[in-house]
């Protein structure tokens, strides 16, 4: 018997019991819709976290001094003075897989303009810092290497600082603000980036040449950290290795000794955050998968009823020449049709409800093609798996017994 005939027979049998078929499919519909919606929510939140992290520069690497000991006293990392400007220069010159590097010194304090003042942080950096941190200049321009050499008292300010200081709507560019009583001329305003993943305001800052901050504000010669940008997100690990080699060599650290510095990349952060959302996604998918299982059992149940109900029909089909395999295939195709049709409707409802979640709750969603393909495959597999046993039972019937069945 060819497949088209079997398909026709199964379709005819199903169309005879439309409402029952629909109720049976409902389990699968709900299951698939749940899987797709849950995965869309899970993937969506994962992507939104990744997006937020990459606004801070997904290929960014940060080098800070590590903890160390001086005369038996363990020091806190921030008080360490082991990172020198020469370290930065060596990294900028020699490290591989990196595209930009900037030293970093920072201080917090009160910024004043006219009668307004506000607490903020000043970051002493070089011009590459904008690229590394993915900042852009909205207005005015970035300071230059010449400004760095000259320890010029110029700065760029973030949008939050603009809002706090320039309350009358004046143009900040060209004005002079004071940070801890040191006057800085504002030469640019940064484009707003909003809060980062941790909820920190990325617009509440002042950027100035690192030489200026070192000399005028902190009065130090060492640097507090180095920000480096790897060539790409994938090159991050190689770049870290290269940086570590250079620093270990420069700091004369023996093969068995611990580093006196820490190298951190955003990639680690992404991995950490992703693993949390992945866990959530798996949990959601498990719950949804269970409902799919329940739907599958529904199919099995109804196929059993169907086989019992149609025992005489099976007997007749066998008596006029249906082989066991024909009967098996007929009921299997019925089960698969039920589950695949349910799956199709479920996919439609799943996509619909995902967009509902997006529009009504404004949660980020991300429907990936593989989740649809996956739930479809699972559906068909469910049909085969739960349809097999009833179909096998039908095909094993003895035609004589089946014809006599009342």
């Amino acid at each position: 018997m060819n497949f088209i005939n079997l398909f026709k027979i199964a379709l005819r049998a199903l169309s005879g019991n439309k409402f029952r078929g629909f109720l049976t499919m409902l389990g699968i519909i709900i299951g698939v819709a749940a899987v797709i919606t849950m995965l869309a929510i899970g993937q969506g939140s994962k992507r939104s976290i990744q997006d937020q992290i990459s606004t801070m520069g997904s290929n960014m690497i940060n080098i800070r001094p590590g903890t160390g000991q001086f005369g038996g006293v363990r020091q806190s990392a921030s008080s360490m003075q082991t990172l020198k400007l020469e370290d930065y220069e060596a990294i900028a010159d020699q490290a591989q897989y990196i595209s930009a590097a900037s030293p970093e010194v920072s201080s917090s304090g009160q910024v004043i303009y006219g009668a307004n003042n506000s607490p903020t942080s000043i970051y002493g950096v070089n011009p590459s810092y904008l690229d590394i941190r993915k900042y852009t200049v909205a207005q005015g321009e970035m300071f230059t290497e010449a400004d760095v050499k000259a320890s010029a008292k110029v700065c760029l300010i973030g949008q939050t600082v603009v809002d706090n200081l320039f309350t009358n709507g004046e143009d900040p560019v060209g004005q002079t603000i004071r940070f801890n009583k040191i006057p800085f001329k504002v030469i640019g305003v940064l484009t707003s980036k909003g809060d980062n993943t941790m909820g920190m305001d990325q617009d509440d800052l002042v950027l100035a040449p690192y030489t200026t901050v070192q000399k005028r504000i902190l009065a130090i010669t060492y640097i507090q950290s180095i920000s480096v940008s790897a060539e790409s997100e994938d090159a991050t690990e190689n770049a870290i290795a290269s940086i570590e080699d250079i620093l270990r060599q420069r700091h004369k650290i023996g093969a068995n000794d611990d580093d006196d510095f820490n190298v951190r990349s955003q990639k680690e952060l992404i991995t950490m955050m992703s693993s949390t959302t992945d866990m959530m996604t798996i949990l959601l998918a498990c719950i949804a998968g269970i409902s799919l299982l329940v739907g599958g059992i529904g199919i099995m149940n109804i196929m059993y009823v169907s086989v019992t109900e149609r025992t005489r029909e099976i007997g007749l089909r066998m008596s006029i020449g249906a082989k066991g395999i024909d009967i098996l295939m007929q009921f299997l195709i019925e089960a698969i049709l039920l589950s695949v049709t349910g799956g199709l409707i479920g996919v439609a409802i799943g996509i619909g409800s995902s967009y509902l979640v997006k529009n009504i709750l404004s949660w980020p969603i991300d429907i990936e093609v593989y989740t649809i393909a996956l739930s479809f495959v699972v559906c068909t597999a469910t049909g085969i798996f739960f349809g097999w046993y009833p179909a096998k039972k039908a095909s094993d019937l003895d035609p004589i017994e089946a014809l006599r069945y009342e």
Partner: protein
Amino acid sequence: MAKEIIRVEDLKRDFVVGDETVHALRGLSFSIYEGEFVTIMGTSGSGKSTLLNILGCLDTPSVGEYYLDGVSVRTMDKNSRATLRNRKIGFIFQSYNLLAKTTAVENVELPLMYNPTVSSKERHERAIKALQDVGLGDRLNHNSNQMSGGQQQRVAIARALVNEPVIILADEATGNLDTRTSFEILTLLQRMHKDENRTIIFVTHNQEIADFSSRNIVIRDGRIKEDTYNKNIRSAKEVLEGLPKEN
């Protein structure tokens, strides 16, 4: 000499029920030739149903040989017997066994659905022709549950004919029908026997039907009690015309 359609040799069939062995058939031998209309009679428990199941290739004998159209059935496996039934046998049942919510044409097409050598176009044409043969040319697309018992049995007969079988096996084919409709069905079977030279085996416990067949085999306790040829075949059509008209 007409072609031998069925030959059984010393046919025995035992069933084991619990500790007991029931001997349903205790050794039957006969041949049926092309163009015969044979009634197989017997009371309930005589073994006629068991014989029918074996003749219909639904069951196999415990002992003895069964040749259908020259092929030995005893050693065949389930699938080969299914194919054999599909090509060589037409079944007519007491309770019609039509598919519910299915049109006459679709019901008649059913045996050909299981024959991959028949195209869907040919299948449809043959089903229509078979239905026209049994006088249901005007009810092709009626659903089986919209038809009377007699019409349903005609559909079943068309279904039995559509695969051009070498033998038609009717199991109490008139058992569920009133007298008039029974004679209509008998008339139809007689016409097929006479005009189209079809071979028919009609299993029944109704003795009257033997008068309308060409040969009568009576079974009792698993053995052949009588095997007689009927020289004076009554015409079911005449009986039908003699019945009082319904109003």
